[in-house]
């Protein structure tokens, strides 16, 4: 049986029960998936087509592979950049949410750092994998819910509707999602959007086919794009039809704070808090905060990772993994 409906990312239940939003969201995602995309001709036998990309709400496929597509949250272009161009201890993260589309956070993980004014030490880092499409669609149906969530997530009851929808419709690059806060993705070049991720998956099966990954061309410098494109293409080479797993979304899979130490050199406690989804299971997550409880007597900027003080949010992002779920199966 084909999938009845695409669920919301993380099975979020932001809209009231029974709201038309859930069906509308499913319809929106269905449009992003589009019709099935046939596979490429087999390079050794062009009369035969390899597996394609399918829309699970319209096409029935017997799933045989549940594939987690996982990558690091820190931007690979910076990770493999020439270290000699950077000062010691610089994580190469110069991103700043005020610059919008010029941000470097291109791996479908965006973050915002809060610093203590008097010494500039980091007190909190918020990570998100939420997409602008979700918030735009939710605002279209339930603007009051979006306003409530902005106020709750940013801890600021003074946020007004005109702040986030100044022209009457939702503005993803509003001040509370750029200069003054973080709610969802804003990177636009290349875009961190659900449509881009689905498009990457959908397009992976098309074009020229290859016999193995040594034949594939270089292309994108990011970690995420080859991860989605090459993995799905490799599954399609096995004559499997591929798609993305419901609930379709980008997720924070987890983090690794091994070797992170308090000012007294003892291991840190668990200072991670999954904010969205609020329901279990907490992981994979959409929004995560890292903040040291006041009772500890120190802040994030006093923590060291492998003996190096935390000075940038990117130092944390290096140890976060991001996920999109893939499926592959045989078609009748």
């Amino acid at each position, binding site marked *: 049986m084909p999938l009845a409906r695409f669920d919301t990312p993380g099975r979020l239940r932001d809209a009231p029960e029974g709201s038309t939003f859930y069906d509308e969201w499913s319809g929106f995602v269905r449009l992003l998936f589009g019709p099935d995309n046939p596979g490429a001709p087999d390079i050794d036998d062009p009369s035969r087509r390899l597996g394609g990309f399918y829309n699970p709400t319209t096409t029935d496929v017997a799933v045989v592979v549940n594939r987690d597509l*996982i990558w690091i949250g820190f931007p*690979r272009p910076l990770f493999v950049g020439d*270290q000699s161009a950077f000062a010691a201890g610089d994580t190469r993260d110069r991103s700043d949410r005020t610059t919008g589309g010029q941000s470097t956070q291109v791996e479908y993980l965006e973050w915002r750092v809060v610093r203590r004014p008097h010494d500039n030490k980091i007190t909190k880092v918020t990570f998100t994998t939420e997409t602008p499409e979700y918030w735009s669609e939710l605002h279209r149906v339930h603007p009051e819910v979006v306003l409530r969530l902005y106020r709750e997530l940013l801890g600021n009851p003074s946020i007004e509707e005109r702040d986030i929808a100044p022209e009457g419709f939702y503005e993803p690059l509003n001040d509370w999602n750029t200069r003054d806060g973080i709610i969802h993705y804003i990177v636009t070049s290349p875009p961190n959007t659900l449509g881009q991720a689905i498009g990457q998956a959908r397009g992976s099966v098309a074009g020229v086919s290859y016999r193995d990954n040594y034949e594939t061309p270089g*292309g994108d410098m990011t970690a995420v794009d080859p991860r989605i494109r090459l993995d799905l293409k490799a599954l399609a080479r096995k004559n499997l039809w591929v798609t993305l797993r419901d609930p379709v979304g980008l997720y924070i899979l987890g983090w690794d704070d091994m070797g992170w130490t308090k000012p007294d050199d003892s*291991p840190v406690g668990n200072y991670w808090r999954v904010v969205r989804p609020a329901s279990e299971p907490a992981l994979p997550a959409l929004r995560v905060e890292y903040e040291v409880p006041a009772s500890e007597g120190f802040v994030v900027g006093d923590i060291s990772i492998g003996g190096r003080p935390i000075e940038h949010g990117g130092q944390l992002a290096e140890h976060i993994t991001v996920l999109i779920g893939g499926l592959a199966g045989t078609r009748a």
Partner: protein
Amino acid sequence: MSEVAKAALETIDDHHAVLPKGIMLAGSGAHLRAKDTPKEPREYVFRLAARRRIQGNVIPGFNKDHQQFLFFRMGDVHRARRWLVAIRPSISSMEEVLTFVRAHRALRLSRGEAEPGLKATWVNIAFSSGAISALLGPEQSSVFGDQSFRQGLAARSTYLGDPTDKSHPGHRANWVVGSPGNEADILLIVAGDDAGDLEDMVSSLRADAVDHDLQLLFEQRGDTLPGGLRGHEHFGFKDGISQPGVRGKVSTEPGDFITPRYLVPRFPGDQMPHLFARPGQPLVWPGQFLLGEPRQDPESFLARRPPATDFPKWARLGSYVVCRRLRQDVPAFWKFCAEGAAAAGVPVVEFASRLVGRWPSGAPLMRASTADDPVLAGDPFAANHFLFDDRTRPSPLRPIPGYPGDTHPHANADMLGVVCPHFSHIRKMNPRDSVTDLGKPADTLLRVILRRGIPYGPPVAGVKNPSRKLINRERGLMFLCYGATIEDQFEFVTRRWANSSAQPNSGGHDPVIGQRDDGGVRSRWLDFPTGSGARRFDLLHEWVVPTGGGYFFAPPIDAIDGVLASA
């Protein structure tokens, strides 16, 4: 230990590779005839001056049966400098080792003997960041771009997953060398074919060092395991099979490569002969191991990028060294394997082999999925020839006298890790063609290292009815590797891949060398593939425990007296 585990351990030396007869393999730096090689890409030529500067254990590697590691602390710096001047002529260069390898091969060819009897004893040296700072001043050591080197192994220990509990024997405070306050300034590596010659050399070096106010903090003897376990590590598995091939030539003459090339094109324009030296051995630009040389392009298997510049000028052609003394609890490993095998319903050696990714002989699971294949293990063109994600196609080779060709079954695609699980040690450390958490497989070439380790301690694997005393003797691996960074190579594969259940691909932690420490809890897990799906195993005990080591830098030889001793 159960009888099943004991039986497996006692007979593990039956799993040794059957070496082919009559094949004359080229050693490192072997000179091929021009007509044997495809059209050559432009590669760096290691001219004589460079070959005399590069230390020989970096390239091509000592590969001797007996080695001694001496960890020194400098006393009076002026006397240490005089010692450096004195020891400099003893340091063996790439040229010296290559010359030996070529002479050895020539004798093998002319006499037709596998071991023609040539012998050598070699010495190499490496310095900690602290030593460079003491000899040249902190401003010189601060120019080294690798921050992990500047911090040292002890400071990075828990980042590598080592124990945080001070009562744990693997906690850095309990290391035999390299613990805070007990870190070595200088590492001497002495290697020889003959144990007696090695001991004579070590005695002389030790005495001379002490005369120059160097304190010997610790020394460790390493030896290849005897008999059928030659080339194996203490758990009983063949080690060191997969090494990257360093790009570059000894001269401009056609075919005169550092790493011999064997592949020929399958079709016009085939790039594989330019990507691999022999099947399964990827070619890597030398700047991944030597400072100041052309490096691997992050986006391409083939392209190079300009040399790094984040080091003092005198350090060009030097290499970072990671030394880890890893204690192995062999009975604990086999006890886990016996229990796991019973639970999974497979033979114990098969269970253990899936943890490693190879059978004890070295035969890869990817090409021998149900039983060990010592003949495959002994075939130097087949034992490392496999992909993970797709079916492996034959790689045509240039004519090799006596070699009939790779007639073993080729590897089928195993993208899901059913045959060679994603947690298996060889798949963790070298994902080959697989996409990783860093994306394209070309990125993996940025992570490879030159491994130069050797076992220490008496073997218990393969010993019939070992005594309690023998079982309790300490044994392990002196892990040693070279690279042009520590952080992006050794530390990368250790922390991000071996120690992770999800990276580079999801399936569990590396059960051989993986380390975890979540607030003192050190359990790991793996999802073992069975006929009815994956079965989760929790690894509650450890069988590899770090017990010492350090981060060092092996300078170019002329810098030993010309720079480090001359300030």
